[in-house]
């Protein structure tokens, strides 16, 4: 029997009972529609989740200098001073998974405005990309620019806590602020973020161009002091240029006997990976790039430390996996329910059409012809239900996104899978009734009342 004719016979048989076909299809329609809607809404939700995680720093990688060790005495974390702007540029050039990078310097000091003073948690020197990388938004004024960074301009952006403590109800934008007795101009106020995961007030911060922090404030790159003392033993310490140092000398005031430090070292480097999923890959890329930049031979240990909020990345991964599994379960259950509906109706249909089957056999249909006919009927019903379900689910998720403001992204994989799955449901749940029909004895079937 020609394939096309089998399909046609099946279609005719289905069309003979439209109400029943519609009701049977409904199970599959609802199943597939819920799969599509859930997948699309779930995809949107998961996109938003990963954006939120990124804002919390899930895709942030920090690079710190290595440990300086002299005669078995370790100077503690990040005590070596061997990270430079050259390393940063090298990483950006060599690591495709790294989206952006900023040097990251920290100093401590007192802030003074008028008659008030305040000691903030953080005074950080960064470049203009930092605001996006750390997810800062500007409440008032503007962030500083690449030009400010290049010039080493004495401008800064302050957090909400400092604005409140020093300026009260006044607008701080355009006002002066003294940091360690150096006058900086405030260009912007950051939008409040609240406490971070450790409970530290993130808004208690002042952010300035790293060049200005490095050259005009005391204490930046203070690790260079111990680095200087270990230079002789740390053979791999970078010989850096003094591009950014200019004429300002960096004598360490706390230790007047130490030799002058001429390194343009930076405290640490902050990097952003393309996404939180690739943080681990990005870390290994950065590690390789830095080893190259520092010309480390294979037997030497890393002279730097790379850290990421790994638990965040893991959490994100397991979150996405849990979500996907949950959706799969829902999809599975609804499709099984739909499939059993199909099987039920096909069994009824076989019983009801016993005489027809007997007749078809009497005029020369083989068992396999009957099997094919019923199997194709159930597949056609399922595929029809699948298509209607895909459309219905799509409309549903679109409507939800409109009314509830949920983010929705179209999932073509979901559409393809649903189509395949509905065909599979048709085959699996249609096979038993079809097999039952094909096994009928023509004599018995013809006599069936």
């Amino acid at each position: 029997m020609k394939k096309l004719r089998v399909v046609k016979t099946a279609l005719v048989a289905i069309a003979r009972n439209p109400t029943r076909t519609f009701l049977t299809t409904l199970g599959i329609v609802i199943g597939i529609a819920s799969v599509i809607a859930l997948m699309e809404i779930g995809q949107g939700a998961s996109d938003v989740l990963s954006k939120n995680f990124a804002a919390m720093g899930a895709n942030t990688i920090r690079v710190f200098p290595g440990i300086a060790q002299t005669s078995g005495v370790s100077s503690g974390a990040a005590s070596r001073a061997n990270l430079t702007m050259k390393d940063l540029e090298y990483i950006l050039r060599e690591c495709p998974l790294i989206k952006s990078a900023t040097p990251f310097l920290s100093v401590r000091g007192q802030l003074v405005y008028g008659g008030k003073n305040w000691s903030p948690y953080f005074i950080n020197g960064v470049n203009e990309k930092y605001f996006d990388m750390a997810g800062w938004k500007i409440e008032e004024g503007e962030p500083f620019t690449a030009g400010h960074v290049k010039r080493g301009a004495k401008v800064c952006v302050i957090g909400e806590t400092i604005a409140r403590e020093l300026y009260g109800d006044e607008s701080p934008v355009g006002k002066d602020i003294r940091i360690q007795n150096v006058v900086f101009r405030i260009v912007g106020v950051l939008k409040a973020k609240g406490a971070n995961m450790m409970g530290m007030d993130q808004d208690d911060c002042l952010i300035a161009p790293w060049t200005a922090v490095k050259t005009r404030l005391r204490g930046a790159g203070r690790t260079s002091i111990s680095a200087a003392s270990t230079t002789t033993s740390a053979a791999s310490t970078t010989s850096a240029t003094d591009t950014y140092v200019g004429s300002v000398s960096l004598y360490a005031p706390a230790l007047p006997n130490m030799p002058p430090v001429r390194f343009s070292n930076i405290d640490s480097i902050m990097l952003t990976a393309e996404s939180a999923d690739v943080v681990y890959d990005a870390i290994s890329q950065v590690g390789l790039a830095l080893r190259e930049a520092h010309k480390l031979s294979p037997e030497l240990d890393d002279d730097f430390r790379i850290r990421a909020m790994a638990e965040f990345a893991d959490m994100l991964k397991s979150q996405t996996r849990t979500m996907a599994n949950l959706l799969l379960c829902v999809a599975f259950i609804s499709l099984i329910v739909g499939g059993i509906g199909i099987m039920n109706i096909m069994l009824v249909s076989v019983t009801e059409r016993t005489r027809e089957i007997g007749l078809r056999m009497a005029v020369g249909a083989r068992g396999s012809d009957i099997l094919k006919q019923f199997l194709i009927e159930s597949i056609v019903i399922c595929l029809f239900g699948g298509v209607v379900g895909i459309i219905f689910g799509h409309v549903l998720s679109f409507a939800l996104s409109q009314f509830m403001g949920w983010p929705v992204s179209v999932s073509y994989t979901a559409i393809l899978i649903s189509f395949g799955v509905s065909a599979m449901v048709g085959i699996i749940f249609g096979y038993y009734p079809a097999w039952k029909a094909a096994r009928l004895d023509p004599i018995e079937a013809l006599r069936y009342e």
Partner: protein
Amino acid sequence: MSLIKLDDIHKTYFMGDIALPVLKNITLSIDRGEMVALTGASGSGKSTLMNILGCLDRPTSGEYWLDGQEISKLDNDGRADVRNKKIGFVFQNFNLLPRTTALENVIMPLGYTAAHLSQKQMVERGVEMLTKVGLSDRMDHEPSRLSGGQQQRVAIARALVNTPKILFADEPTGNLDSKMSDEIMRLFREINEKEGVTIVLVTHEMDVAMCAKRVIKLIDGEIADDEQVKERRL
């Protein structure tokens, strides 16, 4: 050479351990172009014999030659092919597909083996058959809108669509009144005489049996009587 040759056919049903012989020692031959009536009381085995002759059932023992081919050893698919190519069936209760037009009912068997025919050729054959049974004006009617006699004509057209060598009719007039019965029997005779199709009727009505050329009477699974009809009805 005879079209049908039965040699010592036995059919025994088993109800648990009890053997129930339905056909015993049937030896019979039917020539091409014959019109035979199988008669007998209910339970005499005439339907069982027709099922075996129609390749719907297998004998327990014995040989069955149809058109020079030994049938009794064929498997299900083999018998399905024989049914499709050589045999046409007409049933007491017509067995038409509901909600399907007369024409589609007639061409249904072509779908199974006549793959070489195009849809158009199939329809042409269907129209030809319906015209032959006098229903050219009822092609698009569904069975529910046809009278009993008309339904049986559609069934006959369907049985003939594959140009079978032999036509089996199981109580073809059982559901019809006498006027309709006569019409149908005339049609059978016409087919037998004009087309040369061998016809085997199963009936318990003597009126109908007397329309055939030869009557075979079964009693308790054995051939009791086999004679030519001297005075044919109609």
